């Protein structure tokens, strides 16, 4: 029997006691990809923040790797929506990516050669290695997004929670995110990704349509039916 990586039962997420989405039930296995689709304010980010442990569930059950959310920083990595560009901070790309290792290093451990190799490898995979020594404030929005993706990869986590990872990226950047997600899943990483784009759901194991409630959930061909899309977006996407 496969291990359940993320399990939620009648989960209600929101801020404080104010619910945003109710009745979320999940059972994600290793290597699965759940894509959350919805408009702005639909609750995608709220659900991801709850999975990351940044906000507490309003009520209901939630377990990530058999622990409460947010308790396993070395095994779960989270990419926030519009991650802070750090543009005012005197940091090079390499420094920002290296921060992905801090969960493993804690306060006192010294970064080893292995940590450096992981950082270099993550930058190469995210296509930002040529900018490694550049100050992040000198980069374009897309290059900054790649830097933050590299930081998430450097965590070498078992669960990736990505909030609109393709935001600000051109077509090559979008392909890169798709291939990175595929590569991570191939090594057994479970991915939950929020997006506006139906194309991003192409290779998902399951899709959850959100509109401040769960409109539909299931494999892409079931959840992305016209009637659900109309309910979620108010119109049918021309795909």
């Amino acid at each position, binding site marked *: 029997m496969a291990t359940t990586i993320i399990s939620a039962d009648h989960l209600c997420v929101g801020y404080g006691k104010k619910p945003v989405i109710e009745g979320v039930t999940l059972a994600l296995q290793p290597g699965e990809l759940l894509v959350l689709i919805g408009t702005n304010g639909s609750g995608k980010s709220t659900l991801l923040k709850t999975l990351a442990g940044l906000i507490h569930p309003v009520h209901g059950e939630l377990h990530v790797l058999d622990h409460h959310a947010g308790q396993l920083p070395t095994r779960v990595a989270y990419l926030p929506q519009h*991650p802070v560009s750090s543009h005012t901070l005197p940091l090079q790309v390499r420094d920002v990516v290296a921060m992905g290792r801090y969960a493993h290093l804690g306060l006192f451990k010294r970064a080893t050669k292995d940590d450096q190799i992981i950082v270099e490898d993550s930058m190469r995979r995210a296509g930002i290695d040529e900018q490694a020594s550049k100050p992040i404030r000198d980069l374009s929005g897309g*290059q900054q997004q790649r830097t933050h993706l590299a930081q998430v990869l450097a965590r070498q986590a078992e669960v990736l929670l990505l909030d609109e990872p393709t935001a600000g990226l051109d077509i090559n950047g979008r392909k890169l995110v798709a291939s990175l997600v595929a590569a991570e899943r191939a090594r057994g990483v479970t991915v939950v990704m929020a997006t506006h784009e139906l194309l991003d759901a192409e290779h998902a194991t399951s899709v959850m349509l959100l509109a401040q409630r769960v409109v539909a959930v299931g494999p892409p061909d079931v959840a992305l039916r016209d009637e659900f899309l109309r309910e979620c977006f108010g119109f049918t996407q021309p795909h």
Partner: protein
Amino acid sequence: MNYFVDPFTNNEFLRFALIGGILVALTCAIAGTFVVLRGLAFVGDALAHGVLPGIATALLLGVSGIVGAAVGAVVMMGGVSLVTRRFRLSGDTAIGLLFVGMLALGVIITSRSDAFVGDLTRILFGELLGVSGTDLLMQLCALAIVGAIAFVGRRPFLLLSVDEGLARTSGFSIRIFHNVMLTMVAITVVASFQTVGTLLVLGMLIAPAATGALFARSISSMMTIAAIVGTLSTYIGLLLSYHFDVAAGATIVFTAVMFFALAAVFTEVRKSLTKPSNSEHEHPHAHGHVHVHI
């Protein structure tokens, strides 16, 4: 040469002032770097003003000003921590009122003293030329403690400066490390009050670090530049103070602020002379601080 060195070789009080000023500059460079990175200037100002009633009470009771400043800083930190938790949306207003209230209380307490104006001036603007050997020892201890806190807390401090959520998801408590950072700032303020005074300490905390932020490519280089600017400001300020008979603490802080102004003008001119070189055809998108309060 004599003009630049003699004042310090001929006068012990000026030598002590220089050493004390440099110790404060180094402490401020470390704490100030994180204050600038995390955008805590306002909280730093609040702490600086918060120590006033503590110092005033201590002087009135005949206790060491440092002890009073420490008590004042602890009370102010508790207040800042409480209002930032309770009044998230109006934190600036609450902290602003808190520090003005503490400042007023400090003046009220000082006004009970016979030497009201003298005491108040001493607290607000420092008494750098009266630094003793014991003061230097205390400032050295403060430098060591602040250095140790910054070294141990460098990772969570950096994460907090980038994004509170990132600190939390990396396994570091936002509340604990925010308070540790405030403690570090409070120690710096307490240790610096005698040198530049509570009114001007913010200048030493912010100006050198902000100058560093303009040029640095890493946190350590920012700190190094801040230390150099702070040290130079201390030396130049003391020299000007000696030769032109002007207030030492204020001249040091003014010099530090001038360093920042010149650096800001220089970087602006340099920026306007070089074209942006973003080669990748991707859309820049809006970036804002994502503050997650737990």
